């Protein structure tokens, strides 16, 4: 398996939703990558464990789309850390993604519900 293929399959675990989760998390405020991962794991009651190897590429993708910006800052432990923040267009994109996701979820539920 080539590196590129490996990367694809990993991203396919939660197709399209990782970015959404990151964006939602960042609406709370600026945080670094580790905090984002922790937040998602914790709020999902450990159901969603973020593949950390896909977290940073996802953050790069989000920056590339202009939905997230980053800035180096001081962490509480005193080390340099990159803090991410959501942009206005990121919020708009989040709204669109969430409504699309809910739309699909509802559809899936309807299909799964026994008749």
């Amino acid at each position, binding site marked *: 398996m*080539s590196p590129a293929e490996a990367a694809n399959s990993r991203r396919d675990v939660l197709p399209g939703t990782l970015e959404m989760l990151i964006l939602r998390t960042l609406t709370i405020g600026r945080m670094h990558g580790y905090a984002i991962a922790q937040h998602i794991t914790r709020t999902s009651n450990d159901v969603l464990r973020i593949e950390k*190897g896909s977290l940073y590429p996802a953050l790069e993708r989000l920056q590339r789309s*202009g939905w997230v910006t980053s800035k180096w800052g001081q962490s509480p432990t005193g080390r340099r850390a990159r803090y991410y923040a959501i942009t206005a267009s990121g919020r708009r994109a989040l709204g669109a993604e969430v409504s699309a996701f809910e739309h699909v979820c509802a559809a899936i539920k309807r299909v799964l519900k026994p008749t």
Partner: protein
Amino acid sequence: MSFVDAIRFRLRSLLRSRTADQERSEEIEFHHSLAALEQGSAGKKKEEARFAARREFGNATLVKEQMRHLGALRWIDTTMQDLRYGLRTLSRSPIFTSVAVLSLALGIGANTAIFGVLYALMLRPIAVPNPEELVSLQRLTKEEGAALSFAEGEYRALQNASGLRIAAFTYAAVQRLEIGGRAPDRVGEIQLVDGEFFPLLGITPVAGRFLTSADVAAASPVAVISEGLAEQYFGNGRVALGHSVRMNDIIFSVVGVTSRDFKGLKFPGNFGIAAPLSIAGLRRAAPRAPRGTPVMLVARVKPNELPGAQSAVDAAFSNCCAHGQYIVRGDKPSSPEHATLIGISQGIPSAKLDLREQYGRVLMALMGGVAVLLLIACANVGNLLLARATARARELAVRLSLGASRRRLMRQLLIESGLLAAAGAALGLLLAIWGTRAIAHYVPPHVIGPIGLLIEVRAQSQLLTFSIAAAVLCTGIFGVLPALRATRSDPVAGLRETSGRAGRSPSSGRLDRAIVAVQVALALLLVSTAALLVTTLQNLRNLQGGFDSVHLVVANIETRDSPYTTLRPHYKEMLQRVSALPGVNVTAIGSTAPLIHAGGSTRIITVPGYQPGPGEEMLVHFAGATPNYFKAAGIALRSGREFTDADKADAQRVAIISEKVARKYYAGRDPLGTLIPLGDGEPMLVVGVTADVKYFDVRAPAEASLYVPMEQWEWWDYFILVARVSGSPNAMTAAVRSAVRAALPGVNVRDSQAIAQILDDRLVRERLAATLAVLFGTLALTLAAVGVYGVMAYQVTARTPEIGVRMALGARAAGAIWLVLRQSLLVVAVGAVIGVPLALGGARAISAQLYGVAPADPRTLIGSLLALFVVGAFASVVPARRAARVDPLVALRAE
């Protein structure tokens, strides 16, 4: 905003990929440390915790790589990587790199230099806005052919009737000139222009203003000078304004300066000074032009409006000018005249010196020659790359087996070739600029003459474009094949190879020898062509005009624009003054002198006792001479006598004929004492017979000549002084000129030169062609030798085990040497077989430039072949000696 953010992000990660990489590492390290902390608090040991965190994170390098690909445009990123890698690889093998770059630099440099001159000569438009719109009005007359001059009255009439924008200019007659109080040696063209001239050209002055219609209407003494003159005499253009230029005792004030790029409308042009057309004191006296000074007309017409403009000119011209009576030059009325508009976007070619005609073909031939040279250089580099690809087979195999795509490897190799070509092109451009400067510097200006105006190869965009195109072409020629071959190899086989010298399939060995054979063939083409051109030059140098040209000084003397109407009463005093100069033995004047291209005319004679065949015209070259002319000019007298002072206007009319006339028309009879009728007067008594002399073309047979005493003919507004000197003729020219000036103040003395020098100068073109051809031929031989050497050296390395076995089995060193030599001679022989037809074709293509040697001259061809075989043998001496020194023990142990 998001779009801008996104762009900024990409740019940043592209430009600062190294810092971005560091940041990624730092971020991931930070992640690890936090994760380790958490694991640690969950009760694990520190080391273990860190490993657990790393395990969870996965392959950090891979993550970084993925992040990087997302961050930048992947294509550019990997290309930059390849570039950096290529630079590193090339700098690791400096000898290979420098040989390749130098070969290419020589090839590209020679091409760029020749292209630069060719561009300046054939392609460069004159430096005015929209040069394609500029046209000149050319009048076509039955008698004169094409002529550019119009009378001033005609100009106004044409301007009014055609409705076109027409401007007029002419060349001034300036005998005395001072710029800023100094008498200059070279000023360029001095033009008289009307007010429309500069606005029509549309150029802008670098300082001041140009001449206006008001200046012309008022005949104001104002002038525009070139930037070159301004810098030479005043420091710069701005300072020049308001200073004075004195022409024919009229003081002009400088009001404007033209830019350096503007060379005037002539080609080759050398614009110097412009003054208003209405200044009478600068006009050429034109006694035969009753309507005033002839002027040249230029107009601006958009190319698509040309047909309409032409019909407007036709109508206007037939009304105002084509009345069949008026003539600007010539003797007879010229009736059916019409005027045409001809495009002059590249300047008006000079009537006396059509550089494009003279040099165009030579330069095209040279361009072909340097293209061949470039091919040879490319073949060299291609061969080097092939050998290198073999040496790198392992590296490529490793990269292939580690998952690099063939395309990526191919791109890597092509990028390396491109880097070589780029370096070669850059160095070549420098070589071209430096080389042409060196030529311009080394060749004295009076020899290089008008060509010197062209040799200003600056880093013009056209040259840059050309050398870049050459580099791209080279990469295509020498890069693709080795790259294809290298990436086609089987990685398994490549990895299995352990010794550096094996691993090349026999077919690739054949390929490199084939390339060298082609090189040899191309070198043969250049060498034999060079030999032909050198033979031509020698043949021309050895040509004799039939006279003793060694100690001869000539000068053109004419009364045009001078206080004299005829020189008849003055010539004796002048001759006395010149003869009195120390070192001058004998002087005379004639209407022409051998090989001067001036004076003389052609007449039809009749000779008593000779019956011309049907349609035969008894044409002779007809020239006037004074006493001692033949002695001074070095023309041998075969029988009879020279003209003497007794051959006065009222004495018996006499003539001297050349041997050719005697041979053709007298058939063994003695011509002396016979009478030749010519013109209205009494027949002329033949008093002497001279040797045959060439008057016009040193390459053509000598003319049949008939000489008459100048005293007995009307021939006195110009003549040529011939002076036989005893010292170096070059040292005498200035003295002769000033003696003539002192005797005849105000007369025009031009081209006072040693005739040997004139003849030598006339061979500039041939010398240029021969010198450059020899240079290119030598380069070609050198490159071919490098090619042969490279392949043979490789062969010896590759066949060391074989040679070792042979030695072990009792072969002697001589046998090993012969093994190599035979190979190299075989390659040269194959090259010769391909090259002979090439060389013959090339020779036929330049046959117009040859003299006294056949294109298929066997001696030249055999000599060139011999040279190639000798060079081929020499190039394989070192590899052959290496083969002879192969120690069988060492060679076999290495297996």
